[in-house]
């Protein structure tokens, strides 16, 4: 009964999430928006890399560089981290500050987690479209090294699912924290996503960071997630990248795929437990201080 009720909550929340995301305009404009936004973010990196090549005078082509594939794939899948973290946190912030419906949802006899995750599910769906478009554009227009015939599908799919679950629950923790902050709660998700962007080997290997930062990187599940996704999606390019450097350039070269998956799962579970704890604690404090339905706009 409880499961059925939770599923219904999830479904209704997903429907609401879709309405919030999509019904502000006509389908054509929404499609344009969904395409342009992810591509523009990607193009910043593409042009940065083009500038690097041009000013280095190496004469190398972008498509020949395994690092370019590394960066491109990382950036594409990072969209999940940014958008889903944002999406989950935003649910609480938006409902509380702008539409002032949070208290009604909160006191309803539903599973609040199911509600939040339902809203997040739509974010994941929309982001998936963005990720796919980016990858297709990268492969067709920029020569990104993804060969569908070489993809390790089981490894890739399992990594994707585990990583997404971890991101969702982390978003919930951040959402809990946003109960306690003012309108600047928007900065929480930007900040945490930024932490992943810098420290998780999204667009450059973690070995580029100072040693102390690499230690932090190795604690974050997103680091292993990025590595697993790349190895699954473009195993050849990752092998080429390793071969082009005399040292363990990714910092995770010593992990085989099985061990990598194990570390990803374990770190995700730890973050899962931590995130749930953070959310519950933040929720308790928010109720004590009467912040469930406060507004802080200025």
């Amino acid at each position, binding site marked *: 009964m409880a499961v059925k009720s939770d599923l219904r909550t999830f479904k209704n929340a997903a429907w609401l999430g879709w309405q919030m995301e999509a019904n502000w305009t006509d389908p054509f404009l929404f499609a344009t928006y969904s395409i342009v936004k992810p591509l523009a973010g990607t193009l910043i990196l593409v042009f940065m890399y083009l500038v690097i090549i041009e000013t280095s005078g190496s004469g190398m082509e972008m498509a020949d560089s395994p690092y370019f594939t590394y960066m491109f794939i990382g950036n594409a899948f990072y969209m999940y981290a940014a958008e889903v973290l944002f999406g989950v946190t935003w649910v609480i912030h938006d409902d509380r500050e702008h539409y*002032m419906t949070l208290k009604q949802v909160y006191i309803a006899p539903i599973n609040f987690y199911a509600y939040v995750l339902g809203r997040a599910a739509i974010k994941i769906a929309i982001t998936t479209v963005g990720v796919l478009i980016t990858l297709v554009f990268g492969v067709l227009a920029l020569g990104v090294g993804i060969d569908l015939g070489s993809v390790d599908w089981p490894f890739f799919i399992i990594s994707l699912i585990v990583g997404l679950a971890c991101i969702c629950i982390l978003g919930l923790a951040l959402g809990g924290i946003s109960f306690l902050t*003012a309108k600047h709660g928007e900065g929480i998700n930007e900040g945490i996503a930024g932490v992943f962007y810098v420290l998780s080997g999204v667009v450059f290997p973690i070995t580029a960071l100072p040693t102390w930062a690499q230690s932090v990187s190795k604690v974050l599940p997103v680091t292993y997630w990025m590595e697993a996704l790349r190895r699954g999606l473009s195993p050849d390019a990752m092998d080429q990248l390793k071969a082009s450097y005399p040292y363990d350039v990714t910092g995770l070269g010593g992990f085989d795929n099985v061990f990598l998956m194990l570390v990803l799962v374990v770190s995700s579970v730890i973050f899962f437990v931590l995130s749930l704890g953070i959310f519950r604690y933040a929720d308790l404090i928010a109720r004590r201080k009467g912040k469930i339905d*406060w*507004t*802080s*706009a*200025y």
Partner: protein
Amino acid sequence: MQPAVETKDLTRVFNPKKKKEGKSVTALDSVDLRIEQGELFGLLGPNGAGKTTLLKILSTLLLPTSGKAYVAGFDVAKDFQEVRKRINMVSGGEVSGYGLLTVRENLWMFTQFYGIKSRVANERIDSLLEKFGMADKKNEKVRTLSTGMRQKMNVIRGFVTDPDILFLDEPTLGLDVNASRIIREYIVDWVKNGKNKTVLLTTHYMAEADQLCGRIAIIDNGKILVCDAPQKIKKLVKTSTTLSLDVSLMMDKSRIRAIRGVDKFTSFDDAEKDVTHLRFVLEGDAPVSDILSELTRSGSKIISLQKTEPTLEDVFIKMVGKGFE
């Protein structure tokens, strides 16, 4: 003297953005209205009648589709900046303002949009907070206020700029009896003691409109159905008056039954309590004195008396065909 508010054949039609969103809605249909300076004017109507649409046009937030509207002699469409200098508006259930600011700060902020010097603004704010019983809340953050307190603050915001014309859209919504009474008294005093101060008030509380307003307009489906003083409006419904009396036990009621102007008469003798309950339906007020004279002549002692006249609600139901939903 030019009127405070005048509308001529004022019409407002709302068209949907897309056809599938529904048909056009005529929110105001050829509304002709004239409110004199110094009036406390009431606008009654069910939900969706067009009250808020009218207020929005008069407060320069909305343009008419056709017709004209003038506030303080200025055309709301063309001379809106002049109109804005002379008006303010308060809506019921407002959540405007910033939760992080104190009551005083919020009110001060809005005075700055009307070019009021800070010293003058603060004096007015303190005075109004005192009058509305909120002096102890002036340094409280707005987000800590109860709904009623917040609404009081909103009402103060309307008065603090000392407008010539104030639009009040259900100002006592959500307020308790005492708070509502304070606000109503202040509104009446403000109009009475101010120099040509005008209030256009919309409300769902019939008693409020009846008590406060010199004239009332009833609006439904965008049309003004009637516009007159409350007493005259009530007479449109029926001329009958109900008179209920408790008198000392009265055996012979034949003379009293026969009094001219008594339309219907019922009585009930309560021998245990030694009381006779009399109930008359009269044509107008004239027979009342005859009844009282007859009771005195017959030696009956009047224990209690209650006279019921047609109410605005009766008028409303008759004209609009429904109560307030």
